[in-house]
């Protein structure tokens, strides 16, 4: 069976004044895949996320989601189409409770409150926040805020979910949970694009890994190949992960 593209990024360039944050980046995420986007700090990962989801209008290039050209479309429109992202710097709706945060996401596909409540309850279970549902989101720990961020995005019932460093700041057990959650979501048919620095977490679950460095794509391959790619090692992975993955 031919893989069907969910998200196609075609020659996307994004500039801030003289700074080229994304330079002619192209890659495709197929339906049902988990693709990771990695690269050193300042490589342009978050910028690319912002271009894809309509928060920035790319300088040039095209973005196609599920067959529709979404270049320059507004963020809410992109979300309505079924492409939802989370934020690296979490944006909880602070003065609302955990449940209200998730409920707000659930309203996108369930305009009636009772239905939305049901969906929110399920999502609370999935992200392990049920017992904190009546706490104000602003007073959660950072780990719980990351969970909430994922939960709120999931509540919009997306076809594709984009996570921007959703595992940063989590401990080992929590990272394991997050990995299992990603796999579970993939099995439920959600396509995933994940930005992450924790290699041990994403290499095992990714179907493909795209590497950005200084705004340019330097690799796009299966995890095993990427971890052995000289340029990637030099730019990003460093000897540590390389040595470790060779040993195992």
């Amino acid at each position: 069976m031919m893989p069907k593209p969910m998200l196609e990024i075609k020659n996307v360039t994004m500039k801030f004044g003289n700074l080229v944050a994304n330079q002619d980046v192209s890659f495709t995420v197929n339906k049902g895949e988990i693709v990771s986007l990695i690269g050193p700090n300042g490589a342009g990962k978050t910028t690319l996320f912002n271009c894809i989801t309509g928060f920035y209008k790319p300088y040039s290039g095209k973005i196609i989601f599920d067959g529709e050209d979404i270049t320059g479309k507004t963020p809410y429109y992109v979300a309505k189409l079924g492409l939802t992202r989370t934020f690296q710097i979490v944006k909880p709706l602070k003065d609302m409770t955990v449940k209200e945060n998730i409920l707000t996401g659930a309203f996108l596909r369930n305009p009636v409150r009772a239905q939305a409540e049901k969906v929110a309850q399920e999502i609370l279970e999935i992200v392990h926040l049920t017992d904190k549902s009546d706490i104000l989101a602003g007073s959660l720990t950072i780990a719980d805020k990351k969970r909430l961020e994922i939960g709120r995005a999931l509540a919009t019932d997306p076809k594709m979910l984009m996570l921007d460093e959703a595992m940063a700041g989590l401990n080992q057990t929590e990272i394991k949970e997050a990995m299992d959650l990603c796999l579970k979501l993939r099995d439920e048919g959600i396509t995933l694009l994940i930005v992450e620095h924790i290699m041990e977490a994403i290499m095992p679950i990714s179907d493909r890994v795209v590497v950005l460095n200084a705004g340019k794509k330097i690799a796009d391959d299966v995890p095993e190949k990427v971890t052995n790619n000289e340029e990637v090692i030099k730019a990003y992975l460093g000897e540590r992960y390389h040595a470790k993955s060779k040993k195992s």
Partner: protein
Amino acid sequence: MKKSKISPLIIILLVILVLPFIKADINFQHMLIIFLIFAGLGEAWNLITGFAGQTSFGHAAFFGIGAYTSTILFYKFSISPWVGMLVGIAVSTLVAAFVSYPCFKLKGHYFAIATMAIAEITKQLFISWDYVEGATGIMIPIVDESLASMQFHTSKIPYFIIAYCLFVISILIANYIEKNRMGFYLKAIRESNEAAESIGINTTVYKLYAMMVSAALSAAFGTLYAQYILYIDPFMLFSLDISMKIVLLTVLGGLGNIYGPIIGAAILIPLSEYTRIFFGGTGKGIDLIIFGALIVVVACFEPRGILGAFKKKRKVERGAYDAKANA
């Protein structure tokens, strides 16, 4: 565990309803009518500012447009103020849509200043508009008292009933919005515009809806106010004084909550009406001085208003209870 919010609301509404009959004093009844009008205006303002987080300092504009529309129709064409009220609502809603759309591009303080400017511009327009008697204002012609003419000369009770109905409608609308999707969307916009957009909320359109509903309600109270006072002029209607009263009473009571404007108006309106009676004239602004001081105190100790303080207390108690249960 979760109590329905409706029950205390119904009690409050019933108490307000019997008050003018228990204390059949003209001054007291007058104060109640003004209380209902301002509590209702607070509810309307709360939608755009308390829920959606877009501070409006210019709500007098919508109130004034409601008052002027029905008055012009009645004064020039003898059209019933009830029809005038509906036309006023329509005009005010349209104006709100047209002027706030560009203003929503402004962030934070700039939006607030723009709304203030809009009220000021509206005032200047009416001052220089001869067809509506400009700065002189309009004395509304006295006709036989009837429901149709929205004029009552022998008792304040009918005015009270109309004010009460409008107030209840405002509460019901605010309550409905708060409990359903729109309320959640407005609060999400207040908390983070970007987060709201990311979960599919068209933030501009929802802010616009909130502004339009808010303007519509404000206009309805404007018509009632004009018919009650039987005189209007641009200075009293489009005044910063009215805009600020709406802001202050809601902030004092508690932003973003349907009880806030009721509590705030229940403190500010008696204060202003009785200082007015006591000091004569417009009360020399003593009410606003006292009220300003109250706001400063509340802002220092509990920025979320009286309701916020109350909620915090309950949370602390609940926290203590949880701690005990865990021990």
